[in-house]
């Protein structure tokens, strides 16, 4: 049983990482698109970012130094990633459900990191966690773990309840949407129950992780806890194949679309990319486009459409 658990944990990490990377690479490799920014853009100069202004507000803007406020962008990112600022601003009712879910998830990720760190230290640096440091680490991951699990449970239950009862969501809700939330809820509930009600003397989370890292199949993981870990691992592996992988998409929608206000400069990298794209050969069929799969985009856009180019 323990070996199955270890294998599933391994596999889920690999699948999650691989699928996430594949998805991110697909977006990153997409051609540089035409500018489509949306204001406010937080890396603008503070005096303009405050009202949503852009560099276009300056006379002869191309002669002015490019102002990219990393601090402004960082502030916006922290507010958005950690506290779901946009959701709080535009959909407070949902925020009350979504924020605990996401913040709980962050706490669980922090817990996993802490437990992993503690396990590695225990295995490879004997004595490193003796005394108060070890106590602090163990206390910290217990707090973050329990808080994260509780918050996620509350959030997932709230999101599922809203999904099932809010009439405004009905029109677009698919069985997959309900399944996604339900499976989160079940996995977390089983994990929580397995942890809370594990028999006295049975291995705790740290022991299991140490066992995992040292591939000690003799660790006897209690059944419910093992089921919770298995389910959670499967959910993690499933995430990149759904829209719940928006942690990947969001990076690109913000940085590569909404906030991408990079101007095309003569001789710059944008110009080089565009030169390549203009050699592509479109096949759009409408007569006015006059694309035949042979002519390039450059040919198409530098010629006047044929006279009788209508349906």
């Amino acid at each position, binding site marked *: 049983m323990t070996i199955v658990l270890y294998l599933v944990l391994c596999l889920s990490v690999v699948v999650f990482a691989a699928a996430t990377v594949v998805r991110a690479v697909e977006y990153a490799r997409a051609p540089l698109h035409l500018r489509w920014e949306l204001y406010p853009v937080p890396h603008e100069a503070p005096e*303009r970012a405050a009202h949503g202004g852009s560099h*276009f*507000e300056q006379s002869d803007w191309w002669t002015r130094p490019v102002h990219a406020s990393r601090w402004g962008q960082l502030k916006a990112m922290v507010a958005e990633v950690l506290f779901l600022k946009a959701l709080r601003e535009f959909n407070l009712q949902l925020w009350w459900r979504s924020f605990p879910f996401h913040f709980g998830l962050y706490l669980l990720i922090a817990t996993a990191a802490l437990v992993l760190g503690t396990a590695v230290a225990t295995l490879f640096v004997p004595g490193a966690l003796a005394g108060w440091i070890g106590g602090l680490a163990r206390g910290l991951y217990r707090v973050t773990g329990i808080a994260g699990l509780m918050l996620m449970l509350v959030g997932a239950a709230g999101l599922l309840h809203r999904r099932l009862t809010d009439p405004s969501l009905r029109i677009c809700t698919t069985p997959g949407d309900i399944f996604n939330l339900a499976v989160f809820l079940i996995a977390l509930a089983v994990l929580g129950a397995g942890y809370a009600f594990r028999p006295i003397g049975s291995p705790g989370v740290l022991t299991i992780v140490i066992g995992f890292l040292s591939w000690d199949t003799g660790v006897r993981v209690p059944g419910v806890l093992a089921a919770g870990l298995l389910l959670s691992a499967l959910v993690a592996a499933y995430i990149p194949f*759904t829209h719940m992988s928006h942690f990947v998409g969001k990076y690109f*929608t913000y940085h590569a679309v909404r906030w991408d206000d990079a101007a095309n400069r003569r001789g710059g990298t944008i110009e080089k990319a565009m030169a390549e794209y203009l050699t592509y050969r479109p096949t759009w069929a409408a007569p006015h486009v006059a694309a035949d799969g042979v002519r390039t985009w450059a040919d198409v856009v530098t010629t*006047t459409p044929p006279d009788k180019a209508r349906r």
Partner: protein
Amino acid sequence: MKDGDTPSLSDMSRANRTPITHVENADLMPLPAPLDDRARERPWTPLSDQTQARYECILDDTCAVSVPRPATPEEETRLVKAFLSGLDKLFTRENNWTFLQPLLLSMEHCARCQTCADACHIFEASGRNELYRPTYRSEIMRRLYFKCVRRGGMLSAWQHGDIEVNWPLVARLIELSYRCNLCRRCAQTCPIGVDNGLIAHELRKVFSQEMGIAPREIHDSGSMVQLKVGSSTGMSPAVVKDNLQFIDEDTSERTGVTVETPWDVEGADVLLVHNAGEILAWPENIGAFALILNAAGISWTMSSDLVGYDSVNYGLWYDDAQFARVAIRHAEAAKKLNVHKIVLGECGHAHKALSVVADRVLSGALNIPRESSMTLLRAIVMSGRLKLDPARNDFPVTLHDPCNMVRLMGVVEPQREIVRAICPRFREMAPHGVDNYCCGGGSGFAIMSGHNFADWRFQVSGRKKLDQVLNAFADCLAPSTPKYLCAPCSNCKGQFRDMLTYYGLWESNRILYGGLVELIVNAMVDVRPGYIEWEWH
């Protein structure tokens, strides 16, 4: 809309030839005084039997695109195939490198949380009709993407939802892609960054670039005429010069200041490009620009090259090829004159088209700097080069933010600084700036009035803006106080002209609309008083 009439997504594929929703006036968002009496609301003009027999009018109460009804089932099949072929192309880099990345992101990451819905003026004004929910159209597109482009099977349908693909679906989707102003206010609120406006835009591209289907006003009579004749107004270079000469003479006579428009001046600092619609509809705007630039001593010119005198670029709304063709012609006109920069007149979509979206298309010698007239005008007004008397503008003024100029380009403050400086009774709308609402004429609607589309444009898409305007003037609605709605954008002005006329708000409440430069000239002490004529036009 009666109970039970709420359209579902599957209704889009419904085979019977009836609209899937109907909007009653009683459903619409209430308006403030003086339009708060529901009993006096104008009834919609019904579509004629002839229109319904000839065109696909099976979405709602109106018809924007006038798609002819296929004569045979074979024709329907051919059109569906063409649509699916276009959909495939939309997701290839060779055909759609221009927007592939943002489109993929919007296809794959919507959490269906509906946060965007409350941001949409059309959804709100319609009385929250499901058909106009911003995610309705997007969700159809998303299901088509997973089913027909990604070739998803049953598991995909279970996860992403299914949709039946047939001609009624395609016909309705063509119309539905023209029920969005592309203002992208919804995208601004999306916690993930999904962009319903982009999805509507990309759908329009499939219909135009693959099927050759687009509203006549923006394609046949719009971008096609512009590329052939030089302007979507149909004005050739000779005609436009004639008209400008007349405007110069008229402006000189009205203001007492001699005005002359310079043409084709090589090496000028500024190439000014107007929306040529202004020349015909609002010549006082054109005259005011010339007067201000001359008075400020700006080295400027206009171009008589084909397309070089008309800044409109309707391709922005529906067709990448048409868009790039027009943008390149604009840049070529500037290059030929070797000007320092192109300055865009009061036209929002021309601002975004040439400054933002075309930025990466214009390379090398065509990458000539583009600047908003708002910043140039601010520089002039704040420099003290013009003697201005704000007392001449002592009437209530509010400022409309054109989406293309503000939310989509970030030109927010320059026009405000001017208005604050010269209009003592300026008041903002709520909300304003990048949070503004569209005028309801965005994405081509301002020039589309076929069949009864105007009813939809004024009763639904323009309703939220009308609500804002009336609220901004709530303390001075009486006709004894003339009021000025400043809209520094031709298409927005077109929408306001038509909408204020529709509701009779000039006659009943003396709400006049106009541009920014008219306010500046009206305040110039060296100019005969009364440049703004309080007459309807």
